[in-house]
């Protein structure tokens, strides 16, 4: 009886030892959490027709929650044309990491969209992924003095990019206050 019992308990024990999975981690030694493709900062670099350079930043270094983001206002001249380049950074680590390259590499999956609250500023994208525009480079044309805002969003559109802002997932959406004077 005893031996048969052992015999028949043996099979499940084999299953157990072969099949049972184990936790690889140690609860008392948590890993560093890694936020993939975390973007903390959006930088706008403006160059006007005479070559002078200004920069505006929207940054939330500690990521979502915690401290409030720091937001620059955009001061633009009336009746001017600016070439604008946009950079995305991850400044959460010790060294700032430029995320713009990743967007350039996958430019057929990304689109930058602009939403302006006023008719006195028009924005045109000036770069292309070969088929559709991307928006890392753009031309901003101002007319009369006004106060408003510009919303810039980065859309991730793998396999669904169609040149519009509709499909995909929004990775970034930041709003800058804007003064044209």
């Amino acid at each position: 009886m005893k031996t048969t019992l052992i015999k028949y308990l043996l099979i499940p024990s084999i299953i157990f030892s072969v099949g049972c999975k184990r936790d690889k981690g140690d609860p008392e030694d948590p890993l560093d959490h890694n936020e993939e493709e975390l973007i903390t900062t959006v930088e706008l670099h403006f160059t006007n027709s005479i070559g002078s350079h200004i920069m505006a930043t929207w940054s939330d270094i500690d990521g979502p929650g915690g401290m409030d983001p720091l937001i620059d206002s955009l001061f633009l001249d009336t009746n001017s044309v600016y070439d604008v380049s946009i950079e995305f950074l991850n400044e959460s680590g010790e060294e700032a990491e430029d995320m713009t390259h990743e967007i350039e590499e996958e430019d057929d999956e990304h689109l930058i969209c602009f939403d302006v609250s006023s008719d006195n500023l028009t924005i045109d994208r000036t770069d292309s992924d070969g088929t559709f525009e991307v928006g890392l480079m753009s031309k901003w044309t101002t007319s009369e003095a006004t106060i408003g805002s510009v919303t810039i969003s980065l859309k991730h559109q793998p396999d669904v990019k169609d040149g519009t802002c509709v499909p995909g997932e929004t990775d970034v959406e930041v709003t800058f206050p804007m003064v044209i004077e």
Partner: protein
Amino acid sequence: MLRLIACIPLIAFAITASAQNDCNLTVSGQVVDEHDGSVLSYADIVILGTNLGTISNELGYYSIGGLCAGKLIIACSHVGCEPIYDTIEVSQNIVHNFYPEHHAELLNAVRIDEKKTPIRSAVEMETIEYQERQKGKSLGESLSSISGVNTLNTGASISKPMIHGLHSNRLLVLNNGVRQEGQQWGNEHAPEIDPFIADELTVIKGASSVRYGSDAIAGVVLVSPKAMTDSFGIGGAFDLVGQTNGRGGISALMFEGSHKQIEAFRWRVQGSIKKLGNQQAPDYFLKNTGLEEWNFSAATSFSDQKKGVELYYSQFNTNLGIFSASHIGNLSDLYRAFEANEPIESSGFDYRIQPPFQRVSHELLKAKGFINTGSKGRIEITYARQYNLREEYDKHSMDIPALSFEITTHTTDLNWRYQHSDRANLTLGVSALMQDNTYSGRFFIPNFKKWSNGLFAIEKVEFGEGWLLEFGARFDYVQQNVFIRNDEAIDQYRYIFQQPSGTIGVNRSIGKYWVWRSNLGIAWRPPNVSELYSNGLHHGSATFEIGDTNLLQEVSYSWDSEIQYVHRTFEFQASVYSNYMNNFINLQPRFPATLTIRGAFPTFEYVQTNALLYGIDAKAVYSPIQSLKITSTTSILRAKDLNAKDWLAQMPADQSKLELSYSIPNMKGEREVNLGANSIWVNKQWRVPSMSDCIGPPNAYMLFGLFALAKVKTNFGELGINFEINNLFNQRYRNYLNRYRYYSDELGRNTILRLSLKF
């Protein structure tokens, strides 16, 4: 096998029935186990020499009408019992009870606890058989046929059971007698259980913390496998389920056996695989909603009359696509998704599962032993180890999961049941749990270790005429240690919660047809780690959730009362319940919204409030003629946040179900054919808290379905064929309890065909 066959079908032979003049008499009564006094349902009762017969109902009652005055032989048989033949003299309607005696060997066979629990109880419970019409449905879906039970869904693939508006950490699932310990805290984490292991699903409504431990505030779902086979030889079952929506199905196979040479030994192996492609709403396919599942289990038991051991191992694995359109970046995306007529990312049909998707596996190993202590007592010890792995892959991450959780749980339960008098028994128990939880990837909840210990006593006494009193007390101690990395250092936080809980209940049989029961209980649960520590974006709902490390335990004071009436052609049950919850942990909106680089997100924080939930569940079954059965159920729930003087979010709306079922009579019992139609009406949930949701609740809806099932005895075994159409009119609707209601309609028409062969 022979024993059983001899026991169940009774050969009718004519003896009596003399006076033929008055043929409208009735004999009725109850079937009660001679030993433990538990009521026996599904006993066959026949009047020999006639084709009159019936089956005892869930409370053991039966009633046979249309009898002629005179002397009759009435026979009662029940699985595992010797049939009883009684001669009765009928001159008026009479009551005749049966007290069958279970065969000694069977009585002591290893039985899984929850299987055929002492049915008579002060708590409200309802059992459904996981058979024919349930196969292929998830656990949550199968249970939702019980009134007061709903499912909380995340799309079409993930559904969690909900009792009286409460779910997740407030509802305990017992899989084969073991507390299911997975990632229950998440709304989108369904119980990791293969429904094909179940033979019966029992829902205990109301606080059951005393018996089962904290978390059982709303109730308990018991998933009970079939008892190990009693017949020698090898048997089994094969199931095949195909469905049009998702163009896939399930195949399941089970073998079991016991052998004459080693009488005490029994075994079973079982497995199932499931595959579905993109599922379909009435007007479009839902992109990336395919799923696959593969599960298996093995069980052995070795027992004689006085002692036994049982070993069980099961594995559950799933891979499920997350509906593409639900993975959104921010609030503008959410509004855009909601306003779109159909999902912005639509697709055709596809079996492939692409990112984002979830991969979940769950493993259970259980060892159980019992020994009888004298003739009146029994000690049971159960040890179980569970391992749960959940990996969530984002759209961006293809090879490594964006986050993964691993949780390992060891539980040990020791119970001693002692029958200290003919009508009273005492159960004493201790339970211990040890759990490790780790994560990697994106932060959502921190690593933690948990220890929980409980001690309980339950006394059940029968007295007077039809009275049963049940009372119990329990004490639990729960400790959670949380570990958070803070650069080089590791911060450790310790949480200790302890709390007594108790219950007192009464069950009273009134006359032959009425049963009344009522129950008072105190239950509690500690806040879980996600409520203490979560701090981040919830992608599916575009909300920002913030935990509170100062949360206290939540304590529930509940009362429920049920009245049941069972007579020949009419059956009725109604229950009222109320649950006052002190320190109810609730997600409440917080202002202003959180501004992030992805835009502004509505922000919710875990806040404690006092809540009151109350409602009614009702069910009526009427058979105007023998082969027709009309079943109607209704459930109504009100859930209030007493501090905010507002409603609670995510509560089921009022609903009613109606089902007509017609069975084509067949006296020989070789065939069984059943046809039917059903409908469900769900009201709009307009009782929602203000400011809690950026998109209001969807409209009321009504759905229809059809079903047909047939059972035929063949040379190979019993063949079952089952055909079902859900959402017959392919109606567009959205369900408030589905998180994907923002993005898409519910599933359209689904035609299901099920074949099963028992051999």
